[in-house]
């Protein structure tokens, strides 16, 4: 049953993958003028130009180019960097895990922080905690990630000297240094997520707190604590799960900013460098991987939702 459900959802993912990859591919069509010249610049040699033209298959019809590109991509071949000649997939492999670690930490902060603020705000209405939560919920989405990151660095690295402002150690290489290095970037990444989850969960909780089944719970003699945590919260979390799934994508986008500010060698840094170097194939590769990640996460979100809500029939 569940397997069938998984397959059905998977079937829905495939057209999505098709369309998004097509979009990533067609970015090349946006390049004004001759894309090869645009990528290589005016000083390029004739051999280089011919080589890239060959690599991109630009003399073929567009759809054919796409399928050619897609076929290569599925086999892990995303071409070579125009700038360094490195294989794009290699560069991605080196940076993917770094970005993943950052995003996962950021999402953990977002979820924990969001739930904490939403629940305390509901549990202690009109207390200072409630106001802090609401303030956070309003401000968090209004302050750009780069500003958050810099403010954190100014206070916690430059002024207090508690945490490093730059550098990254992978979790496997040293959990201690990893933690120290990931706190500020992780928090920068999560602020918007905390705000969004706080707001959504708070309004969702306000609704479920008034639900008939919570009144039933009270009529059984449960405490407020139990009514909120055992009856209200679980129901209120359901719509928030979808939001959390979407936030993953936002966080992934924000790694571009955070990695550049904290000098973290992930995909975000890779892509910004690539854009500056007009390394279009590299940009395309990063964008492609990020989008595939987003789609995978949306898929997982759907599954988690179905597991959490017994009303959804597999």
């Amino acid at each position, binding site marked *: 049953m569940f397997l069938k459900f998984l397959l059905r959802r998977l079937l829905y993912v495939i057209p999505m993958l098709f369309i998004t990859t097509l979009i990533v591919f067609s970015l090349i069509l946006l390049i004004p003028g001759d894309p090869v010249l*645009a990528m290589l610049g005016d000083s390029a040699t004739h051999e280089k130009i011919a080589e890239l033209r060959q690599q991109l298959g630009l003399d073929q019809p567009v759809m054919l180019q796409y399928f050619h590109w897609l076929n290569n991509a599925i086999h892990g071949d995303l071409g070579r960097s125009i700038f360094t000649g490195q294989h794009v997939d290699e560069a991605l492999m080196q940076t993917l895990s770094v970005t993943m670690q950052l995003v996962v930490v950021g999402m953990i902060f977002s979820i924990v922080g969001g739930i904490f603020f939403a629940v305390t705000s509901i549990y202690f209405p009109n207390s200072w905690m409630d106001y802090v939560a609401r303030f956070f919920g309003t401000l968090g989405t209004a302050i750009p990630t780069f500003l958050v990151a810099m403010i954190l660095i100014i206070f916690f690295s430059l002024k207090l000297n508690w945490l490093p402002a730059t550098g990254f150690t992978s979790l496997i290489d040293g959990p201690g240094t990893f933690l120290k290095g990931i706190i500020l970037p992780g928090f920068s990444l999560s602020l918007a997520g905390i705000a969004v989850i706080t707001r959504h969960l708070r309004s969702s909780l306000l609704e479920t707190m008034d639900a008939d089944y919570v009144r039933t719970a009270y009529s059984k003699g449960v405490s407020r604590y139990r009514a909120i945590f055992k009856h209200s919260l679980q129901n209120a979390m359901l719509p928030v799960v979808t939001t959390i799934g979407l936030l993953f994508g936002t966080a992934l986008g924000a790694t571009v900013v955070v990695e550049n500010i904290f000098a973290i060698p992930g995909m975000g840094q890779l892509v910004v460098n690539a854009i500056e170097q*007009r390394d279009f194939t590299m940009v395309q590769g990063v964008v492609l991987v990020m989008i595939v990640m987003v789609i995978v996460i949306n898929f997982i979100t759907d599954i988690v939702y179905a597991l959490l809500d017994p009303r959804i029939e597999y």
Partner: protein
Amino acid sequence: MSFKTIFQRLMAEKLAFISFIFLAILVIIALLAPYIAPYDPFKQDLSEVMSPPSAKHWLGTDGLGSDIFSQLLNGSQTAIKAALFAILLPLFIGVPLGTLSGYFGGIVDDIFMRIIDGIIAIPAIILALGITSALGVNLWNAMMAIGIIFTPQFARLARGQTLQIRSEPYVEAAKISGAGSVWIMVRHIIPNISPPIVVQASFNLSIAILIETTLSFLGLGAQAPDVSWGNLIQQGYSMIDMNPWMMVYPGIAILLTILAGNFLGDGLRVALDPKQKSS
């Protein structure tokens, strides 16, 4: 619902109304920036590097002696341009496409929606990076990218609303009485789908400025001679030891503008809600 009642309701939402005034002033400032800025934002004056706020330089000068206040005014122009693009491009391309697609339905609509869903699934910053990388790095292209990102969102919103309204009895009645599709769309559908679109446009203003300043901060947006608040923050950050205020001013400008867009959106949602009783 007349414009007057909407306006009155908006006034009742204090925060939204203040935000509206704030944004209106910002737009005027942005339009007039070249005329009211006391200095050329790039004019260097090495005799007055890093000067504190004074009567001459209201917000002081930066590391090259340029007037920070003038730069801030110029940055508002960039921000408003990006916001306008993020609203107008989707409005003139996304809304008509979504409305047509929803109105006529069928297989074209199905395919169209699939594509729209695909684009929307891509996080805004990532798509913006892809687009600017293809188009080339400059402010114009960054704004283009922002416009492209929001277009499918408006199309989806317009389509969803159109589907609802298409089956309303008064639209059916108009059809039966022989009204043409264009007439129905202009007369019935567009007026009815506008409230949620206006609300969304207000939120877009915030997101557009968020993306514009982020791209500019990364060096992928505004290039000289354009100034972005994102650039200013970047510069301020590099001089944080000498003049922390260089970061504070553009930071506050960004924060207030985004908050204003959000508050206005919240207020408009209430003010334009047809279910709300007119009091």
